[in-house]
C-alpha cells in the first residue's frame, strides 16, 4: 500500500550508546539494531530513558559514548538537519507539528529538502496515505484533533520518503481505537512496505503485537530484549511496568 511512501529501508544501529544532558548519562550502554522491513520497539516505564535514547539517535540529545550509524554512515552527534538528509524521519512525542502553520505548510516544511517539483507528487502520496488530512489542508495545525495531529506529524516526516522512521510515543494522548489503528495499520504498514521502523511506545502490549523485536528499558539500561512472543510471557516484563508487589 505504501510502497512509494518510503524508500527501501536502511539499517540504523546504535552501539553501546550512552546519552544525556550536561554530561550526565540518562541512558547507558544501549545497543539497537533496526533493519528494513521490521518494527523494533522500545518500551519501559516512564522515566526509563526511552525518549532520551531516541533523541540521541537523531541528534537532539548529545551522545556521550558509543556510536550511531545509518546505512553504514556514522551519524553520532551529527546535527538533526544532517540526520534528516540521510533519510531518517523523526517524529517527537510532543511539539510534533508547527502549530501556527497550516496542514499544507506543515507538509511543505516536511518536504523542505526535496526538489521543488517533487513536492506536489510527494504530498499527493502522503495524502493518499492519510486521506483525512485532505479536507483540512488550510486549517492551522494547532486546531487539529489529537489523531489528526499525529497523522500530520507522521505525514510531515513521510514527505521525505524516509528510509528509517523514528517514532516517539506516537499514540500518546490518543483514544485507544485511534491508537490501535495507528499502530497496526499505519506503522506496521511502513515496515511491511520495506521501511525500517524504530518505535518508542508506552502502550507496551500494543507495541509488542506489531513488533519484530523489542527492547525493554529500565533505569536507563536494557533490562530485557527479544522477540515479542517471548517477552509477553516473561514475568519480568509485566513487573518492569507495574512493579513486583513487595520486592524492591
Amino acid at each position, binding site marked *: 500500500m505504501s510502497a512509494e511512501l518510503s524508500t527501501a529501508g536502511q539499517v540504523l544501529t546504535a552501539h553501546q550508546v550512552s546519552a544525556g544532558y550536561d554530561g550526565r548519562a540518562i541512558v547507558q550502554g544501549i545497543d539497537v539494531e533496526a533493519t528494513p522491513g521490521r518494527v523494533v520497539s522500545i518500551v519501559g516505564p516512564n522515566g526509563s530513558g526511552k525518549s532520551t535514547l531516541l533523541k540521541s539517535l*537523531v541528534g*537532539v540529545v548529545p551522545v556521550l559514548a558509543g556510536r550511531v550509524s545509518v546505512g553504514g554512515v556514522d551519524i553520532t552527534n551529527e*546535527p*538533526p*538537519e544532517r*540526520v*534528516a*538528509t540521510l533519510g531518517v524521519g*523523526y517524529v*517527537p512525542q*510532543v*511539539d*510534533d*507539528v*508547527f*502549530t*501556527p*502553520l497550516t496542514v499544507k*505548510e506543515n507538509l*511543505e*516544511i*516536511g518536504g*523542505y*529538502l526535496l526538489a*521543488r517539483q517533487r513536492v506536489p507528487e510527494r504530498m499527493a502520496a502522503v495524502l493518499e496515505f492519510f486521506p483525512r488530512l485532505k479536507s483540512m489542508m488550510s486549517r492551522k495545525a494547532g486546531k487539529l484533533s489529537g489523531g489528526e495531529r499525529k497523522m500530520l506529524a507522521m505525514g*510531515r516526516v513521510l514527505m*521525505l520518503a524516509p528510509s528509517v522512521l523514528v517514532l516517539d510515543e506516537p499514540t500518546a494522548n490518543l483514544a485507544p481505537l485511534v491508537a490501535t489503528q495507528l499502530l497496526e495499520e499505519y506503522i506496521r504498514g511502513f515496515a511491511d512496505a520495506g521501511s525500517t521502523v524504530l518505535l518508542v511506545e508506552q502502550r507496551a502490549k500494543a507495541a509488542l503485537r506489531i513488533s519484530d523485536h523489542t527492547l525493554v528499558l529500565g533505569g536507563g539500561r536494557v533490562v530485557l530484549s527479544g522477540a515479542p512472543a517471548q517477552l509477553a510471557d516473561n514475568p519480568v516484563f509485566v513487573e518492569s511496568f507495574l512493579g513486583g508487589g513487595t520486592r524492591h
Partner: protein
Amino acid sequence: MSVFLSSLGFGIISAAVLAIATVGFTMQFAVTNVLNLAYGSVMINSAFVTYYLNAHLGLNAWVALLGGVATGSVASYLLNRFVYTPFQRRHLAPITIVIVALGVDLCGTFGLQAIVGGSYFSYRQSLGREWHVLGMYYSTLQLTIIAIALGVMLAVAWLLKYTRLGKAMRATSANPNLARNSGVRTDRVISTTWLISGALAGLAGTVFAMNTGVFEATSAQLYIVLLLAAMFLGGPGEPYGAMLGAAIIGVATELSAAFINPQYKMVIAFVILLGMLMFRPFGLFGSERTA
C-alpha cells in the same frame, strides 16, 4: 480640507514608515526571541549612509537608499551573529539580552553622533508636486513612501506565505527543533531573517529621515517606543499583527496630535503599549504560546 482628513493623511504616512520598521523588528523577535532595542540605532545609521551617498557622492536619493538598505541589513546580521547569538548561547535571562541591546543602542546612536556631530541634516531631494487624493494632500515623496510601504508589506506577505524561505522562517519561529528535524538549517534561516529584517530597518530609517525632512544622529532614539507599541498591539513576533499595529499606532498618534495636543503625539502610543503590556501581552488576537 478638514483637520480630520489632513491628520489622517499624516497618520497614513507615519503608519507606512512604522509598518516597514515594525515588520522587521517583529521578525527578529519571532526567530530569535530578542527584543532588539538597538533597532532604532540601525535605522538612523542606515539613514546617514543614504545621506552620505546622496549629499557627498551626489547619488540620487532613491539610489542612495539602496546603500542605506544594505547598511541596515549587514549591520543587523553582524549584530545578531556576533553579539546576540553568543550571549544567547550562555542561556542568560532574557533581561540580560535586553540590557545588552540597550548597550548596543548607545554605541550605535552615539557612535554615529561622534562621527557626524550634533547638527541637523537633510537629503538633497525635492518633495515633488502636490497630489490631491481622497480629500487629502500628499507630496510625491509622501506618496512614494506609502507606495514603498505597501510594496514591502505585499512582498513580506508573499515571502512568508509562498516561498520556501518564508515558510522555513515561520517554522523556525514556531518550533526550531522540529524545523531542524525536517532538514531546515535553522542557523542559516535565522541569519537570513536578520539580513532581511535589517534591510527593512535600513529602508525604514531612510524613509523616516526623508519623511521628517531634517534629522540628526539621535532622531530615532524614541522611535523604539512606537515600534514596541505597534508590535505588542499586533502580538510579539507576528508580522501581520505588526502591520495592523503600525497602522493603528501611526494613525492614532497623528489624530491625537491634531485633536488633543501635538505635543502629546507620542503619549497615545505609550498608553496603548502600557495597556497592552498590562492586559494583553500577547497581542490583541494572540494567545500565549505553549511550550
